[in-house]
């Protein structure tokens, strides 16, 4: 399953990352090397194996639907790169 530079460019778009031409070439090379190694898993027949998503079970945990105190607004806004009194500020969306 060879990865092309075009694949890597598409993945970068999905991951919201930009790279230089050189970096794209390096990633394409490294991806092929790493994924070739990962193809090792295909030696195993796993058709009757259930996937394991969590080492110790991993079922949903519910709590009573009671409103609890959350992070105060000022704390939530504390690290904002740009803000006003109440909101995070970002570039115009519409």
């Amino acid at each position, binding site marked *: *399953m060879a*990865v092309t530079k075009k*694949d*890597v460019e598409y*993945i*970068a778009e*999905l*991951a*919201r*990352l*930009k*790279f230089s031409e050189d970096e794209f070439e390096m*990633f394409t090379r*490294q*991806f092929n*090397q*790493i*994924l070739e*190694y*990962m193809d*090792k*898993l*295909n*030696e*195993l027949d*796993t058709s009757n*194996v*259930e*996937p*394991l*998503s*969590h*080492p*110790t079970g*991993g079922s949903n*945990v519910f*709590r009573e639907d009671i409103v609890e105190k959350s*992070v105060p607004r000022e*704390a*939530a806004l*504390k*690290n*904002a*790169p*740009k803000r006003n009194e109440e909101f*995070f500020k*970002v*570039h*115009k*969306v519409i």
Partner: protein
Amino acid sequence: MKNYSTINEKIQKLRAGEISLKSNVEEFLLKISQNQKLNAFNFVFEEEALKNAEIVQEKIKNGNFGKAAGVVVAIKDVLSLKDHPLTCSSNILKNFEAIYTATAVQKLIDEDAIIIGKTNCDEFAMGSSNENSAFGNVLNPVDNQRVPGGSSGGSAVAVAAELCDVSLGTDTGGSIRQPAAFCGIYGLKPTYGRVSRFGLTAFASSFDSIGPFTNNVEDAASILEIISGYDKNDSTSSKTAVPAYSEVLKLKPGSLKIGIAEEYFGQGLSPEIKEQIFLIIEKLKLAGFEIKEIHLPHSEYTIAAYYILTTAEASSNLARYDGARYGYRSKTFSSLSEMYTNSRTEGFGKEVKRRIMLGTYVLSSGYYDAYYRKAQKVRRLIKNDFDEVFKTVDLILTPTSPTTAFKLGEKSDNPLEMYLSDIYTTSANLAGIPGINIPIAKDSAGLPIGMQLMANLFEEEKLLQLSYFIQNELIRKS
């Protein structure tokens, strides 16, 4: 410098007035500044630590103090401490300050521990050598030309160079055990869910564990006892009762059955490490322990499964860094989506980007089944291997790392080779089981050799008991 060997001895001497806590903290601070070239700390809380030393000293005087009174602790800079920087050694969180404290850290503070600073690590805990940090490389105190291991390199060095009493690190695929092995100290990765992850910046949520670095087994037991337990803020934390680990360390020689898997002693393992570990095995036999040959047949698939699953989880966890609500925001963009892209591109380092890319790839449409789902199935097979083996043995004994500490720059151009240095440690995270590094010897170049013990889920007691026996009867007496 230190006139105590364990933290319990320190507390006793503090009570007896044989140690002044303020001078003790001052000595650590001095040592930190003398060892700045090791680059173990991202932040040192000098004034605060001294102030807390006075407060805790007073508490001790009044006879009203916690189980970690006066214990000087360094924490990895992926753990939150309210109103203090939390950078994960990344430029994307350069000016970030935590708005709450991690549960594991809070539990130590509640027991009157003193947090002296935050330690350097690989960016977002991704790396095996501490060479991926926005704060620069950390040097191995044993040989400054070599890496301390990673990703918790700074936490390992802080303990090994005696810049604090104990430290906390995190282990997603070996990030506590491998640096402990490279630096010659103890490093314990608890069972998944034993310690709450609340306040730990997520890398791979179904793998991440918080654990201690210490100079001896007693301290590892004392710290684990404090930081363990259920936390409503982490729904994956376990309600399994927390034993008094520090009180159950003594065991009858021969009472535990130990498994040796040939898969962990194959090609790529340094002959010197193998030899030293077999010396320990021989001594254990002589002491009456039953050693059993076991098999973990899917061992050769651990690295592939591990890197598929952890990069997938990382790409999802790190999607939150977009420059909108916190963290670095790029100065140049003309749309919202460009703000996301440029902030991420300028804020993340090379290895983090590589893992986000790999993770995005294995989760992308068309490859999800071939890689991600396949790796989850292999994770089941690996877990089944351990379940089977733990029916017949109590503990598994392996090397921690195939080599001793390697040179700075030696593996930085070859990510796959770097990933393979985790070959003996990732399995515990895949299966969720606990593991510990024991510093057993030095190689001919004087570099520390580490040995790993693994136990079944929530059987840290057995890990600590055998470690304690090995420390006291086989290492210190040899």
